[in-house]
């Protein structure tokens, strides 16, 4: 570890020396913003190419670019998929130049699907591997459950991404847990990405600009989660004119409004969605059920203001909630707020400063209407973040970019406060609050050494301080395994100085990505990353529930550490119309958590005694073929993988498949534009069933059969394989409401051939005779689901 660190430090010293050498040449810089002429949105990843030097760069997530070259006159070509190329001559003989420009969408006879808003050969030329970017327009073309365009469900069609089953919340990347994904909404983490358990995600597709999923070779600017980064960027809002988008679907209705506040200078977007099952069901709910609440909604908003050439500020927020229940009910939701200041120090140095707040909370109440305050049960829980993070980008040469920055992230864990009132007597209980601060600093350099070789190397240093405001903290002490101590541990009380740091963890997280260009349109890439994660989701159920509690790393719970190596070959065909890649990865995971028999994770102050710690490993091969151009577009992804855990004493202390170990995953996504009016979409998914275990014996007590599973076997059998076909047809209308704008009808059928895909198999006593036993196959979606959605824009 230490040796590796020293090597890294040396490597960096060499880099920094090389920068100063470059810095001595007389060089000048051209920089600026590239935007979409139609709505003023910054174009992400547009290519900025210096013809004379045959080299170039691309715009960052705000559409900013910077190129530093020896003094002279240059022709710079700006290009982005789906936009008209722009060529500009820049005189850089004397001074640095600023060049902002707006690009126009290509006029086409037919509206082709733009799968990527980026350079056409980006997947081959860039250093990124194990990365999937999907344009929101492409996501909107995928046939969706109940016609609701859904980002997380679309991601589940990509290689290396699985889920434990239909309706399960979150997603699993390369054999990692759902808590190992950092889901960012304009830089603020979202702790629960689902509405209605896992059927829909919290992202309003009308407010999303682009989505990037990083599964491996994670650059040093990202940290805090072990398996992946899902970076969701919101639209900035149309800075040219008023734009209204909306839709009426089977589940949600949604509307978004974007408009300039000051033309070309400031704009905003506000987007809202609400489900209305409760409204429709109201007439059918009578008596005790009349008060039933059953809804979910979200509100997404963003404003931006270009103060001047050098300064832009953004403010964005998300607020969403799911509400269920009548007298007894619960609700949960995320709130995020992020403020960002982008500042250009010089033509070469770009600073992005972000401050954010994120809160995930839930409430469970036996008495929503407050009818019996003397006899009630209330339970609240939340996880709260405040963070400040500056990120610098230094454009040294067109071929060499340095990024560095840091972050302070505070965590407040309130895992469960419950108040039980019986005949007016109140008792409070639950899990002690915990606090954490994560500090991190990173540096990374991306360098195109030659046309044949480029690399990105970096390191992130993270430190985590755990503290508690309680009078006691607990230490795990081994005891003989017994019915009361199934994990073999008990907890010792230790008096605590409130607020004192009880445990500090520090990690160096090296990151490396290499690109060897092997031909005009092909490359070999390799990457390594180490990720440290200081928070853990306590979840012992097949699918994670909204009530699962996030907990801090403590003196007992060590941070999760993941090392991943990946190797891939990337090749494009037919003028980049086809992108193909094959990647293989191997991942080791330390300090993984499983649970002892009868572990109680809710409101149990002593839950740390019920935890079991061990390790995990995951490896696999991912194939991806994508067609980007033409009337027919889409992709095929196939993943062969294994995800295992070794957590003693489970499974007789042998490796067992994790709940999301799915050997084969095949997804085929296709879209066809027939003419200006009609387009069609289809997707097919085939996934190996999840592992499960059966009891071996039954015994009878009081006239009922009970199972015996004495060896703690995990995953010795598999649920039958999953497969499903969805289709959709979209009919575009020239005019929307009030004869303005445009509109479309989307007809879709989810699970077209009406397959009952099993989520799980379980055993139970039969209803008629509880001394008899049977096995039951549970399907979450047991039939085909047709839907119609109407979308409009004006």
């Amino acid at each position: 570890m230490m040796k590796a660190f020293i090597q890294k430090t040396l490597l960096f010293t060499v880099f920094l020396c090389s920068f100063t050498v470059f810095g001595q040449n007389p060089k000048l810089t051209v920089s600026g913003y590239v935007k979409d002429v139609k709505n003023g949105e910054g174009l992400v990843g547009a290519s900025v190419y210096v013809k004379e030097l045959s080299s170039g760069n691309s715009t960052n997530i705000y559409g900013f670019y910077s190129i530093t070259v020896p003094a002279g006159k240059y022709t710079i070509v700006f290009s982005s998929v789906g936009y008209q190329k722009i060529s500009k001559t820049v005189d850089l003989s004397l001074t640095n130049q600023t060049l902002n420009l707006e690009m126009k969408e290509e006029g086409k006879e037919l509206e082709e699907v733009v799968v990527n808003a980026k350079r056409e050969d980006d997947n081959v030329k860039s250093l990124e591997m194990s990365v999937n970017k999907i344009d929101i327009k492409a996501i909107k073309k995928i046939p969706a459950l109940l016609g609701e365009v859904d980002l997380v469900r679309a991601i589940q069609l990509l290689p290396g991404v699985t889920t434990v089953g239909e309706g399960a919340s979150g997603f699993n990347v390369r054999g990692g847990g759902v808590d190992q994904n950092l889901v960012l909404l304009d830089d603020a983490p979202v702790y629960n990405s689902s509405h209605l358990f896992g059927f829909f995600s919290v992202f309003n597709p009308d407010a999303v600009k682009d989505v990037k999923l990083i599964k491996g070779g994670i650059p040093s600017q990202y940290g805090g989660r072990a398996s992946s980064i899902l970076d969701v960027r919101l639209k900035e809002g149309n800075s040219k004119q008023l734009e209204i988008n909306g839709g009426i679907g089977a589940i949600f209705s949604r509307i978004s409004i974007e408009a300039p506040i000051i033309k070309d200078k400031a704009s905003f977007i506000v987007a809202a969605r609400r489900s209305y099952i409760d409204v429709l069901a109201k007439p059918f709910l009578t008596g005790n059920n009349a008060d039933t609440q059953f809804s979910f909604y979200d509100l997404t908003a963003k404003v931006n203001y270009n103060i001047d050439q050098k300064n832009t500020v953004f403010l964005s927020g998300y607020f969403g909630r799911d509400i269920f229940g009548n007298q007894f009910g619960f609700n949960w939701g995320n709130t995020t707020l992020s403020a960002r200041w982008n500042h250009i120090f010089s033509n070469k140095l770009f600073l992005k400063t972000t401050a954010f707040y994120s809160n995930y909370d839930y409430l469970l109440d036996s008495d929503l209407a407050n009818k019996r305050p003397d006899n009630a049960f209330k339970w609240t829980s939340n996880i709260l973040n405040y963070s400040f993070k500056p990120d610098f980008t230094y454009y040294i040469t067109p071929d060499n970019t340095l990024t560095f920055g840091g972050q302070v992230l505070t965590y407040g864990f309130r895992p469960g406060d419950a108040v039980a009132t019986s005949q007016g007597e109140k008792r409070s209980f639950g899990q002690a609050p915990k606090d954490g601060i994560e500090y991190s600093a990173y540096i990374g350099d991306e360098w195109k050494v030659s046309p044949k070789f480029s690399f990105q190397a970096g390191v992130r240093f993270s430190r985590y301080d755990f503290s508690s405001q309680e009078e006691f903290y607990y230490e795990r002490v081994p005891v003989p395994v017994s019915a009361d101590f199934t994990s073999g541990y008990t907890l010792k009380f230790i008096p605590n100085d409130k607020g004192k740091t009880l445990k500090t963890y520090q990690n160096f997280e090296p990151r490396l990505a290499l690109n060897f260009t092997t031909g005009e349109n092909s490359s070999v890439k390799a990457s390594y990353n180490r990720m440290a994660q200081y928070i853990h989701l306590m979840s012992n159920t097949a699918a994670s529930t909204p009530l699962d509690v996030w907990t801090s790393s403590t003196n007992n719970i060590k941070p999760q550490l993941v090392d991943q190596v990946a190797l891939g070959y990337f090749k494009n065909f037919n003028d980049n119309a086809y992108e193909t890649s094959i990647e293989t990865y191997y991942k080791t995971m330390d300090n993984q958590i499983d649970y002892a028999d009868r572990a109680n994770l809710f409101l149990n102050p002593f839950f740390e005694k019920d935890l079991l710690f061990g390790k995990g490993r995951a490896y696999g091969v991912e194939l991806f073929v994508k067609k980007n151009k033409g009337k027919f577009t889409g992709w095929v992804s196939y993943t062969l993988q294994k995800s295992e855990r070794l957590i003693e004493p489970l499974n007789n202390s042998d490796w067992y498949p994790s709940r999301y170990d799915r050997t084969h995953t095949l997804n085929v996504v296709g879209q066809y534009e027939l003419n200006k009016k009609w387009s069609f979409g289809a997707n097919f998914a085939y996934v190996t069933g999840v592992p499960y275990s059966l009891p071996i014996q039954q015994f009878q007590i009081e006239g009922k059969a009970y199972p015996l599973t004495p060896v703690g076997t995990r995953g010795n059998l598999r649920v039958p394989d999953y497969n499903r076909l969805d289709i959709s047809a979209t009919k575009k209308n020239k005019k929307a409401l009030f004869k303005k704008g445009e509109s479309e009808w989307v007809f879709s059928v989810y699970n077209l051939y009406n397959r009952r895909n099993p989520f799980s198999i379980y055993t139970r006593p039969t209803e008629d005779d509880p001394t008899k036993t049977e096995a039951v196959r549970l399907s979450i979606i047991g039939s085909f689901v047709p839907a119609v959605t109407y979308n409009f824009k004006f």
Partner: protein
Amino acid sequence: MKTKLLFIIAIFTTLLLTSCEDVVQLEGPKSDSFLIVEGTITNQKGQQVIALSQSQDYFNNATVKGITNATVKVTDNEGKVYEFKDVKNVGKYVWTPKSTTEIMGAIGKTYTLEVTSNGETFRAVSEMKRVPKIDSIAYQADTRENETDPKKPKVGFEAQFYGRDFTGIGDCYRIKSFKNNKEVELRRGGVQLAYDAAIQKSRTADGLVFIIPVRRSISPDLFVEKDTITVELTSITEGHYDFWTQATQEVNNAGLFSRPSANIPTNVININLSSSKKASGWFGTSALSTFTTIVDAKKARTGLK
């Protein structure tokens, strides 16, 4: 609370989407049979029974076989031995008092069960815990509009029982209710438990009046005029509470939020730890409180929480 919550989640999920269940035929794994102990010694007058049976492969739905020709005895912590005899030769071992005044169980005593069968000896230990008295049963008029079982009343009285848990964390109880001397079945099967004054284990319901969910647990269905309501509150050990909690959880462990299956604990062990012949089930000891009332509309209360 948690199970109720998961239940609600399950209901909503079911309502919204067309989830469905099919019974499927599976070949279960084959393994050795366990010796199963079922029996609870009480502090009541009369016979005490301990049943021994064999476990069988999970999907084997044959009638369970009793274990005969075993020797079964219980020894209390003062050394007094109680012999149990399988009079009918079906695996039901019975201790019969020598006189009408002889009572086997006493609060505070520890009892050791010893079973010898086919050359293997099994042992279980349990202490008889204290039980508080039931102060009253109250009922008020109520309706169950959504009752689908024609045998169950839609209009009647919902009953609650009142009692106060002892001070001291960790008192565990099992609650049964009877309608006209017939045991009332819980809505979702299983058994009704209490840990101190609440259902779930926590350190905070100690010494309270049994909280609402416990109080109301005796009335999953409504009672009607002239029904005799009997409530039995019995003490159980914390191990026995865990046994029932786990057993109930294992037979209701289904759906989106199911847990990995866990073994149902047992207090019966083979004294030869290395023997391949294992035992399961539970040997329990319970002290009992009862309260009986007859429903009289004139005495019905209003505004009960």
